[in-house]
């Protein structure tokens, strides 16, 4: 624990704790939510739009569902959206960056020009466009955001490879006749993947912010799945008179994004990474 504090500082450790608690909430939502069935979407019309009380700590929404339970179940969507966006982006970006950086030449030129095209779009706009084309649904919105994110990782992977390719041990392996594929996987991939993984961990916060924006626009999860962005949108109609419907999920997104951001800063001070803009 004290080692952690030394590495991350108090703020960073607190943020890590927040993130871990949200992860636990997401994982154990059915056991932790006071009304798991409502968290999963079962309406409870007789109790609709009730203010916070002993029964419903954060009040209820327009279908009478416990907002706290919805927020807890929403953590599943937001957490997995954040993680999957980053994972998909890595899955596309890392190989492309590796190939471009390792083989260079026209392959590099071609792949980098493709990333130029993707980076030329304002990111959220392309994501909205794709999400609309693919239709609503969590997976679709995740794919839509990932498509706009991978070029960053491709660029970063390429830059890492360019450095690693010149390392003596890589050149030695090449001279000794080790096959190119083997060099790429054995010698270059591990070195290039490390900084990318750190960056990816930092990007989970911005990723879930972007995903919640799509969800707010109605391009995210299908009802009745709980999602924070969507809950804010639904509650907007009742805001501010029945503020709890929007405020609870809104503040939750903010807190989690804040935790990722501060933790990111703490990590960055050590590892050196770049900040990513989100919407």
């Amino acid at each position: 624990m004290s080692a952690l504090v030394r590495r991350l500082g108090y703020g960073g450790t607190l943020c890590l704790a927040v993130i871990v608690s949200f992860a636990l909430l997401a994982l154990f939502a059915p056991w932790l939510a006071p009304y798991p069935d409502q968290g999963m979407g079962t309406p409870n019309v007789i109790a609709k739009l009730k203010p916070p009380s002993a029964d419903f700590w954060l009040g209820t929404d327009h279908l009478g569902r416990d907002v706290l339970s919805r927020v807890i179940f929403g953590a599943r969507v937001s957490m997995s959206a954040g993680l999957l966006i980053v994972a998909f982006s890595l899955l596309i970006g890392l190989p492309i960056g590796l190939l471009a950086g390792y083989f260079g030449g026209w392959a590099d030129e071609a792949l980098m020009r493709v990333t130029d095209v993707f980076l030329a779009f304002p990111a959220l706009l392309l994501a909205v466009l794709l999400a609309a084309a693919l239709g609503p649904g969590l997976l679709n919105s995740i794919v839509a955001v990932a498509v706009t994110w991978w070029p960053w990782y491709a660029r970063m992977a390429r830059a890492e490879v360019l450095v690693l390719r010149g390392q003596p041990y890589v050149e030695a392996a090449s001279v000794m006749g080790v096959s190119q594929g083997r060099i790429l996987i054995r010698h270059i991939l591990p070195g290039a993947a490390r900084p990318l993984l750190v960056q990816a961990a930092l990007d989970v916060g911005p990723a879930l912010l972007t995903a919640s924006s799509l969800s707010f626009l109605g391009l995210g999860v299908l009802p009745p799945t709980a999602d924070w962005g969507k809950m804010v949108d639904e509650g907007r109609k009742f805001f501010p008179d029945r503020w709890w419907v929007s405020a609870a999920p809104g503040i939750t997104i903010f807190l989690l994004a804040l935790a990722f951001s501060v933790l990111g800063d703490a990590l960055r001070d050590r590892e050196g990474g770049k900040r990513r803009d989100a919407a």
Partner: protein
Amino acid sequence: MELVRYTLRRVLLSAFVVVGVTFLVFVVAQVVPSDPAALYAGPRPTAEQIAKARVTLDLDAPLPQRFVRFATAMGTGDFGVSYKSRRLISQDLAVYLPATLELAIFSTLLALLLGIPTGVIAAARRGSWLDRMGSLGSVLSVAMPTFFFAMLLQLVFSQWLGILPLSGRLSQQISISDPLPFVTGFNLIDAVIAGRPAVVLDALAHLILPALTLAAYPAGIAMRLTRAAMIEILARRHIIAARALGLSAPRILFGHALPNAVGPALTVIGLSFAYALTGAVLVEIIFAWPGLGRYVSEAILSKDFPVIAAATLVVTLCYVLMNLVIDLTQIIVDPRVALT
């Protein structure tokens, strides 16, 4: 020579990017699970109306042929008509684009105005309470979801305090009874041209909340970047030299150190502008701002492809142009860039 070559390369790359973007938009449009002919034919169309629309829109031509036609039309600025409203898209863009640009430019200015001075002061007074407050604000602004921030601003400034309007670009008194003649589409400029100071103020008041929503995030980033850059610059030898020459503290800070921070500042302008263009989709809906963001999000809901394509292309073009201008400005401000 390097300058010319650098400029040429940048322009060529931008041109390539525009072609790529056009292609990508076209491809995405093919994925849209909707029949454009049915949309074009209007609400509750009959089968004959749809068949007629297919012919009018030439939807049965082979794909490559359609792409070429699409690209040439876009290239000549002929965006066609909206499937939904059947209005000329270029006419709509003429109204909506200035509205979005006005918001984007204003929010960029606001972001710079908020972010850069706080960053400079924070760097000059490292560790002071001003520095800490600035850093805290920047962390908070980066984590705030745009749409929720917009709601909070509306709540506080419009619904509680009543000092700023909730939505729209101009008060109804003006837009209904005494409209502003359309010259540039930028209300601030048009109001100045029309010589109506009250309208300038009204337009400004309407700009503040949406622009602030969009400016929060880039202002936070601007503050961080400026602070980091200034801390590095202030430790440079030429700053010590300037102090040794007896120059006053403000002159050193703003006259000597800040010009060196133009690089990061330009980065912030680009980032902020891009963020405003992107965030327009969210903010224009919440503030009923009649701009491209609202236009495109409505088009997306109704799968109005020509509008989506035109708006996406125009926004992306603005973005690409802005980046080009920033890169070229970078060389003018700091000629060493072109050499690297």
